[in-house]
């Protein structure tokens, strides 16, 4: 059966990190998809790279706080740039996103290559593929580690960060679900009621950015998009109630995390490979497969049923 040492040291941290990233992103994704801002997250994710690099260059340290701050600032800047471009040139959001995304990411790549940043553990590869595989819980040889405060302190920082972010996301969404719903459904009416729509939009955006940054470190810029969009899109195929949709999306996110990990990390071992494949790609693929299944087979809105009804 499963060897507890292997599982706790290697499998569990990756599995948990991936699932938490999917969960935090997936929950926020519900509102993001409804706002038609799914692609904004794409830009935010790509902006993390220059943010981290500049954060490193400015502070000269690889301290996680500095990089996190840089990434966050770059994410917010990306959104501001998108909105500015849309207004200044009067173009569709997609075009503005495309321009900002590529420009910022290219800036990150070039600055990274030209500076000393790449000599440390920063590189473009992480931005493109994530670094889930580097998450290990050293010293967790047996199950008792779960209850051992000393060994719990040695939990990988990425996992802890994702855990904190997930708790924050769940808390804020729980407290402000009504407010966010009103802001997304009818912002003009919400403002006429005196709800601080701009503040709430900014708060939501910050929440997305923080989550995207944390998830970026785990699964990279592009797969973060899958984490944000797929669970909500899958849940959307089954229900017309926002609360049900949010609950379903959480389930789908966790399912994608678990099945994706099994697909990428364990299946190859069973097929005779010496090591598993990247879990991040596996999770995104699993999320996409779940979404496609939902699109085809969902009871009321799936295309199979739809076709029969017509």
């Amino acid at each position, binding site marked *: 059966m499963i060897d507890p040492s292997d599982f706790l040291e290697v499998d569990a941290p990756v599995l948990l990190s991936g699932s938490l990233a999917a969960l935090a992103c997936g929950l926020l994704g519900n509102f993001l998809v*409804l706002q038609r801002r799914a692609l904004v997250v794409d830009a935010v994710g790509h902006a993390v790279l220059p943010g981290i690099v500049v954060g490193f260059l400015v502070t000269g340290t690889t301290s996680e706080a500095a990089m996190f701050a840089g990434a966050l600032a770059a994410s917010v800047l990306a959104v501001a740039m998108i909105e500015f471009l849309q207004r200044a040139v009067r173009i569709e959001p997609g075009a503005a996103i495309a321009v900002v995304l590529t420009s910022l990411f290219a800036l990150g790549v070039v600055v990274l290559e030209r500076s000393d940043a790449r000599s440390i553990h920063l590189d473009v590869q992480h931005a493109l593929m994530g670094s889930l595989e580097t998450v290990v819980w050293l010293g967790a040889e047996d199950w008792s580690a779960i209850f051992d405060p000393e060994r719990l302190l040695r939990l990988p920082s990425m996992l802890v960060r994702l855990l904190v972010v997930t708790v924050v996301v769940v808390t804020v969404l729980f407290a402000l679900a*009504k407010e966010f719903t009103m802001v997304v459904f*009818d912002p003009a009416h919400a403002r006429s*009621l005196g709800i601080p729509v701009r503040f709430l939009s900014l708060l939501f955006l910050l929440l997305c950015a923080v989550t995207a940054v944390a998830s970026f470190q785990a699964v990279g810029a592009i797969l973060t998009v899958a984490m944000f969009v797929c669970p909500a899109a899958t849940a959307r195929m089954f229900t017309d109630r*926002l609360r049900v949709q949010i609950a379903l999306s959480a389930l789908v996110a966790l399912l994608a995390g678990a099945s994706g990990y099994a697909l990428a990390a364990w299946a190859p071992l069973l097929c005779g490979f010496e090591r598993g494949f990247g879990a991040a790609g596996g999770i995104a693929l699993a999320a996409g497969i779940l979404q496609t299944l939902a699109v085809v087979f969902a009871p009321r809105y799936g295309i199979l049923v739809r076709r029969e009804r017509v």
Partner: protein
Amino acid sequence: MSVLSSVSRAWAEAGEPPALEVRGLFVAYDDRTVLEGVDFRAEAGSLVGIVGPNGAGKSTFLKAVLDLVPRLSGAIRVFGRPLDKRAGLVAYVPQRASLEWDFPITAVEVVAMGLYRRIGWFRPVRKHHLRTALARLERVGLADLADRPVGELSGGQRQRLLLARALAQDARLYLLDEPLAGIDAASERLVLDLFAELRAGGATVVVVHHDLDTVADRFEEVLLLNRRAIAFGPPSRVLTAANLARAYGTPVPVRSWNDRESLAPASSA
């Protein structure tokens, strides 16, 4: 109706401040002016229409009055108070098309949004809130559809839904953006009756409207708008051929006023 409006008029003369007073309103999007020095006044208890061509700034006018778009200049008073003290007095019904109708939410939940000030931050919507919301849905004849997702409602039903949400706010001034555009006859009848009911209760209703032919039947005062206030007053005096030509930039055929006189509300005659 005419008795009631003359009562409210009497109040106005007795010194009650107008429900809405706008002076020198100037609004621009980026570097493009939308409204240039508009003056406006809606007495408490009146039913006022705002008409003008596309892009005349009608919707912007309502939004500026609610502080939803920034003003370059202009003074706005609601029942004699500055805008930041308007809380609870004003209900706004935006244009139907500006909403995200493809949203997983039911009709009664939308109406409950109108109760927001009563529910408050962080608190969930409770059973008794939904009951109140359901009562408002009944007033617009949608009680049967309370649990429908809003995406499944027709245009007229959606409009009535938004009205029910505004009713839930128990406001004294109602600002409505194109509530009569593209809805079926039954819904239209219902909406107009509701306006009458609101006024009977002493509320003020300001409506952005598109159809010149029906303005005189429905509103006792009209603002003819095209970036500037072209004319303001009773329809018979505002909708003259000269004014309309100025607003629309081309002569506009409107049914002759002689046919109208009998239809126009007595108070405006």
